[in-house]
């Protein structure tokens, strides 16, 4: 998800704007373009919108004293409602109770992701990073206008007025935001606003209860829960092999199922439309379809991996080249060679893919948890031959996503629309079953890595040659022009091309494999495999050098103080170096992704039969200013669990061109019995905040592998891990 080019450009802009915020109470640049509506220079136009004071695109102060924060990002569990509300509450000096999140409409002109350019969406752990300054300014502007309204009403100077916990006051005078809302809407929008000195923060850095409510009593509404008058449900039969197509089908039995209304062919299969899910699924299962597999995937995981291994023998495309790695390796006494294999992985969010669409003469209305508003909106407009603004998106919570709902191909969204198009005016809910979801592709790509590394006479890394084979995620998508540079997909090499250790001769090559298997970003993207390789290899080099793995890393990270900071903190809190009971061992890993730094120490216990458990994980994170520490802790806990699933259990494999797994019995994910104790420690920082949704994930697998290496001497190089007994 992180676009190297876009990120570089916009990050510069971000840093410039942050530069002004670093010196205490300073003025933020307030963008008039972000106002809810255009206001003339003299402030003559009222900023009252639907009875609320709407100073800009992000804040609505109601006469009922609510402060609605328009959230431009998807809440999929990562806590963005809470984090973004915290920033606005801070600059407004609101009370936490009065702040209410509301999903912003799809509108890239006001709600674009500032790190993505002119596009609205959620991913790459960017929500806080791109919103922090924007929402500080939005909140500060709202506060400024509320204060100005109070000053006018009371006939006193604004600097005599204080604001605290949602109350505007001066001596005996006081008013709530709600009481000032209408008057504030008549105040001129400031061109610049004062931002708080971080020393005065009362919300940022503290933990307040989450704002994504309704999730403990069944009242939260997900896409799966939408029920509109006259709505029908559709279940689709997809080809059993990627690249397969419908040759012909017999729908007599399907149409005979009670409740089935229609059967329609769509681009990637045949849809049964019915009055409820069960009828639609029963009808779908009764379809007799002949598939055309002439262009379909054949072969198996083993045959694909054999091809990858062959590709790794050839010259790849250089992604980075320092020094002369060939000369260094040929002169070295000892060369360490390691091959790593990574399977395809499904996202397997708890909410299987679904989408509600209604198409009529006015356009198209969608109910969905959108991770990529703009892309889906444009794809729907193109499919239906209508203007983009005629695609209205109603944003809902997503029951997880982990990247799956951010698909440049908009696969499930378009599928829902293709079906809805056949029944103008009728809302259609497309529901994928768990089997459809598991077998539906857009996986974390399979990868093969080969590393040859050597030490110098002092045990320091001398040379490191790494080849990565895999499918590009962004090739063939609208992201390709920005994210593929000279044949290198930045999402394939992130975490490897920027590996932090001091190695004088370093070469990284990629080989782009091609396959009909659709691939996609999966929580922490390239780092899901690059971090594992990097942290396994450096661990092996430390052992070869006879050095302590923490000390060895620290010595090679002299130019990377934030890596050092989390590594030292995790090691200290974990009691690194202190004795452990028999059969128990520790392993460590450190990795930066999405500009956040995470180190973890894992403790494992190994049984005589080769079974093992992960018992305890100590995690240190540096994500800049810790906006809401409890959300950060939750994301580290969750990221560790998410990364443990492929380390211990999950893989998508192929046999005879078909996905082998279908549901949670064979695509296994961790359960409560697998979850270790987790301790999270946050590095204090004044740096701009960065994301936490993904960076906890890539670190756990190498930490566990390194612990298993310490316990058993076995170097694990493929996931899920299997120890020889």
């Amino acid at each position: 998800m992180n676009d190297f080019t876009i990120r570089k450009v916009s990050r510069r802009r971000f840093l410039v704007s942050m530069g002004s915020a670093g010196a205490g109470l300073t003025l933020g640049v307030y963008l008039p373009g972000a106002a809810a509506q255009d206001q003339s220079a003299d402030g003559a136009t009222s900023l009252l919108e639907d009875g609320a004071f709407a100073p800009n695109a992000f804040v609505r102060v109601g006469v009922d004293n609510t402060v609605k924060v328009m959230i431009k990002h998807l809440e999929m569990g990562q806590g963005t409602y809470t984090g973004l509300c915290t920033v606005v509450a801070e600059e407004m000096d609101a009370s936490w109770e009065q702040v209410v999140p509301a999903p912003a409409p799809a509108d890239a002109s006001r709600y674009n992701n500032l790190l993505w350019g002119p596009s609205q969406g959620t991913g790459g752990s960017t929500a806080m990073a791109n919103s922090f300054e924007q929402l500080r300014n939005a909140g500060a502007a709202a506060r400024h206008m509320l204060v100005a309204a109070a000053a006018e009403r009371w006939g006193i100077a604004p600097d005599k007025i204080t604001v605290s916990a949602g109350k505007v006051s001066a001596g005996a005078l006081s008013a709530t935001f709600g009481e000032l809302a209408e008057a504030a809407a008549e105040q001129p929008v400031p061109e610049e606003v004062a931002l708080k000195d971080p020393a005065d923060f009362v919300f940022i850095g503290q933990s307040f209860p989450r704002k994504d409510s309704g999730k403990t009593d069944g009242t939260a509404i997900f896409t799966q829960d939408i029920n509109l008058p006259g709505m029908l449900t559709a279940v689709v039969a997809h080809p059993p092999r990627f690249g397969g197509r419908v040759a012909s089908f017999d729908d007599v039995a399907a149409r005979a199922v009670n409740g089935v209304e229609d059967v329609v062919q769509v681009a990637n299969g045949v849809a049964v439309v019915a009055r409820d899910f069960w009828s639609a699924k029963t009808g779908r299962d009764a379809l007799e379809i002949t598939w055309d597999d002439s262009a379909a995937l054949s072969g198996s995981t083993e045959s694909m991996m054999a091809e990858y291994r062959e590709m790794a023998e050839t010259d790849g495309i250089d992604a980075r080249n320092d020094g002369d790695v060939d000369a260094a390796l040929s002169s070295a006494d000892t060369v360490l060679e390691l091959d790593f294999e990574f399977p395809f992985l499904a996202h397997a969010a708890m909410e299987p893919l679904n989408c509600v669409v209604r198409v009529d003469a006015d356009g198209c209305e969608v109910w969905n948890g959108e991770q990529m508003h703009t892309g889906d909106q444009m794809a729907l407009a193109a499919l239906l031959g209508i203007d983009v603004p005629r695609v209205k998106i109603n944003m809902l919570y997503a029951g997880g996503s982990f990247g799956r709902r951010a698909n440049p191909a908009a696969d499930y969204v378009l599928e829902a629309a293709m079906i809805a198009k056949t029944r103008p005016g009728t809302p259609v809910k497309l529901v994928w079953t768990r089997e459809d979801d598991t077998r539906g592709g857009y996986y974390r790509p399979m990868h093969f890595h080969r590393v040859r590394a050597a030490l110098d006479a002092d045990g320091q890394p001398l040379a490191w040659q790494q080849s990565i084979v895999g499918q590009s995620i962004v090739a063939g998508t609208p992201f390709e022009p920005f994210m593929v540079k000279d044949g290198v997909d930045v999402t394939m090499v992130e975490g490897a091309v920027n590996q932090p250790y001091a190695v004088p001769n370093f070469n990284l090559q990629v080989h782009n494999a091609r396959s009909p298997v659709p691939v996609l970003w999966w929580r922490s993207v390239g780092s899901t495999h690059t971090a594992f390789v990097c942290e396994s290899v450096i661990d092996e080099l430390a052992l070869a050098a006879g050095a302590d793995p923490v000390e060895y890393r620290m010595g090679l990270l002299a130019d990377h103080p934030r890596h050092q900071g989390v590594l030292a903190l995790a090691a200290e809190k974990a009691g690194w170096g202190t004795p452990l009971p028999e059969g128990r061992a520790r392993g460590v890993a450190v990795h930066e992704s999405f500009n956040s730094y995470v180190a973890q120490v894992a403790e494992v216990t190994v049984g005589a039969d080769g079974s093992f458990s992960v018992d305890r994980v100590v995690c240190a994170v540096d994500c800049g200013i810790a906006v809401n520490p409890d959300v950060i802790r939750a994301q580290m806990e969750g990221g560790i669990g998410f990364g443990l699933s492929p380390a211990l259990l999950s893989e998508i494999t192929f046999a005879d061109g078909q996905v082998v797994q279908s549901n949670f019995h064979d695509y296994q994910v961790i359960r409560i019995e697998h979850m270790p104790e987790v301790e999270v420690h946050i590095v204090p920082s004044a740096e701009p905040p960065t994301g936490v949704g993904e960076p906890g994930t890539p670190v756990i697998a190498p930490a566990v592998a390194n612990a298993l290496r310490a316990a058993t001497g076995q170097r694990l190089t493929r996931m899920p891990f299997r120890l020889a007994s």
Partner: protein
Amino acid sequence: MAVTLTINGNEHTLDVADDMPLLWAIRDHAGLTGTKFGCGLALCGACTVHLDGNPIRSCSTPVSAVAGGNITTIEGLNSKAAAAVQAAWQKLDVVQCGYCQSGQIMSATALLAGNSDPDDADIDAAMNGNICRCSTYVRIRAAIKEAARSLA
């Protein structure tokens, strides 16, 4: 085919096939959407409801098997144990995406109804059928203990 179900104390006469899983009768016909569809094979626990107080997986229970029983969904929870569980869930901010949490809370409530002081092994045994892809397990464990303390 009409089936009469008692859900949260209310009788619902639903025009559904005998073999329709209870989950879909609850969601699509009784209109109660707090109970979630996750897997359809009793593998993930998102669809957990109580039948006469015992946790069952509604996605794999045909409606014909539960006619006459008392079904409780997340919307109908009103026991002391349930209130303690929900309060602990909120106090510890267990939830992330939230999709599995109705099922988690139904399983946790049933656990505490029969065991006022569960240890880690009890919790694993009772909760292992409930998958959370956000991996809120650390907090689920802590919240069950918190709820047990508050009930003691």
